[in-house]
């Protein structure tokens, strides 16, 4: 029998309500995330070149991705890094995904799909890097 130390999925995405997107404008979508207590993920700009950054990327879709705004990271010390603080996210936090809505986008419901790459650790162990699906419902209006 194999006994796992804890659940493997420590980062959760709560899909927001559909995003209203007017053709020809720029829109922003919140991507709410929450981490299991005791865990952190590296920020989008980790403190060490070996660390794996949090990164949200979108597949080609009806909206044009125009960047992601990451929150301000915390600088935290851990048992395995007592001297060097690490740039991390923990608890609940939000990313902001920016898009433009092309002039020719068809009106009606649509969806954007993306991948969130992250690497989580707690005080004593790290999980292997994960790629989480992120879906965003969009309601395109003229």
């Amino acid at each position: 029998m194999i006994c796992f130390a804890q659940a493997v999925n420590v980062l959760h995405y709560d899909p927001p309500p559909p995003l209203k997107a007017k053709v020809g404008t720029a829109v922003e979508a919140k991507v709410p995330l929450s981490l299991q207590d005791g865990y952190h993920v590296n920020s989008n700009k980790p403190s060490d070149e070996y660390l794996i950054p949090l990164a949200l990327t979108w597949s080609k879709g009806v909206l044009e991705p125009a960047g992601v705004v990451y929150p301000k990271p915390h600088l935290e010390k851990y048992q395995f890094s007592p001297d060097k603080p690490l740039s991390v996210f923990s608890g609940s936090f939000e990313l902001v995904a920016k898009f433009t809505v092309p002039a020719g986008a068809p009106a009606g419901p649509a969806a954007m799909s993306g991948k969130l790459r992250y690497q989580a650790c707690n005080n004593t162990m790290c999980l292997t890097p994960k790629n989480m699906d992120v879906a965003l419902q969009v309601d395109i209006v003229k």
Partner: protein
Amino acid sequence: MTKRALQYLAITGIAGYLASCTFYSAEWPSVKEEKDRKKAPEFALKDANGEVVKLSDYRGKVVLLNFWATWCGPCEVEIPWFIDFQREYKDRDFAVLGLSLDEDGWKSVQPFVAREKLNYRVMVTSEEVDQLYGGVDHLPTTFIIDRQGRVASSHIGLASKNTYRQEILTLLGSAKPGSPKNETSPLVSSNRMLRVDLFRPGR
């Protein structure tokens, strides 16, 4: 079946499951009794020089098999300990083997090995080998393998240097199993580690 009976079955089931998972303090050595040790799965992986390394090459030696990655902070704490063990015990039929889970393989591993001056053999693992060892998803994951190629101890997460040393010495035949030792790691003073029973029955 009544609701109460179902509740009883659920509670006893959970209790049974938990009882099968043994929790240890990281500071307590936990070498299994010989009768409880199971064969460590064989693997054949290339090292940095392209030489094939098989676990069975090390039969007759005590092996510390460490799954790690360059992005794993707790692994980085343990690696200097393993360097010490390799240096101190290599002439006593002991070897450390490091299996890296870095997805980009040697591109990340080679500079790290050079920078940290690892003095033991390192290989880049494969998904197949990870699965053989219980589906390694948490790092560090470390197995201490006895001279007969059986898993004598396993640790998920950062353990203490003393725990490893005590287990190695026990298997090398110079310490009694479970005997106390003064050296402890402040890093893990309040940590409780999970020992894994590696293999499913019949594996």
